[in-house]
C-alpha cells in the first residue's frame, strides 16, 4: 500500500528564512508526486508536481522540490519565506489516474 510520511508537523520560521519540508513516500510502481498548500479555511491548491524528467521541479510562489528516487523523497524548498506562506502543506502521491494519498501535513507558521 502506498504511504506518505511528512516528518515536520509544525514549523515556525521568521520571514526571509529558508524552508525545507521533508516528504518520504512508499509506493510500488511509477509514482507521481505533488505538494499542495492549504491556507486557513481554504481548499487545496497545487504548488508543484513531478511526473517524470528533471527531478528538480519549480512551482508557484517561488517553491521548488527535488525528487530523489534513491531516497524515496520529494522535499519542498523555498529560499526565503514570507508571512503570507503561513499555511498547511501536504505532500501527496499517486500512480497514474488514481487516488491521492496524502501525508499528515506540515503546519508552517511564518513570523514577522
Amino acid at each position, binding site marked *: 500500500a502506498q504511504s506518505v510520511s511528512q516528518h515536520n508537523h509544525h514549523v515556525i520560521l521568521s520571514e526571509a528564512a529558508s524552508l525545507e519540508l521533508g516528504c518520504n513516500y512508499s509506493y510500488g510502481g511509477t509514482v*507521481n508526486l*505533488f505538494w*499542495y498548500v492549504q491556507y486557513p479555511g*481554504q*481548499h*487545496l*491548491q*497545487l504548488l508543484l*508536481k513531478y*511526473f517524470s524528467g528533471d527531478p528538480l521541479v519549480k512551482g508557484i510562489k517561488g517553491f521548488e522540490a527535488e525528487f530523489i528516487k534513491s531516497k524515496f523523497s520529494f522535499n519542498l524548498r523555498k529560499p526565503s519565506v514570507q508571512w503570507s506562506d503561513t499555511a498547511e502543506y*501536504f505532500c501527496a502521491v*499517486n500512480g*497514474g*489516474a*488514481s*487516488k*491521492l*494519498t*496524502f*501525508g*499528515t*501535513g506540515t503546519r508552517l507558521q511564518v513570523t514577522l
Partner: protein
Amino acid sequence: AAGVIQSPRHLIKEKRETATLKCYPIPRHDTVYWYQQGPGQDPQFLISFYEKMQSDKGSIPDRFSAQQFSDYHSELNMSSLELGDSALYFCASSLAASGSWEQYFGPGTRLTVT
C-alpha cells in the same frame, strides 16, 4: 478558467439526518474523486468515478453512496449522519486522457453534524 464547483459550501445537519453533496467537475474532465478531511487531519480518499463508473473505493462508510451522472457531475449521499461525519468534503476532477494525472480540487463542503 473554470474550476471545480461544489455545493453547498456549508451544511449543518442533525444526527441521523441525510445529506447530499454535489460536485461539478471542470468541463471535459471525466474523473471525479471525493475526499474527506476531518479537523486537523489530512484528506482521506473516499471514492472515485471514471466515465460514470466507480473506479476506486477507499474508506467510505456503508452509510455513504455516490454516483456520477451523464453530465459528469457527481453526488455524495450521506445517510444516518453521525457526529464523526463532521468534516470538510473535497471533490477533485481530472482528465484521464490528458496523461497529466493532476487533480484539481474544489473549495469543499463543510459539513457540521450536531
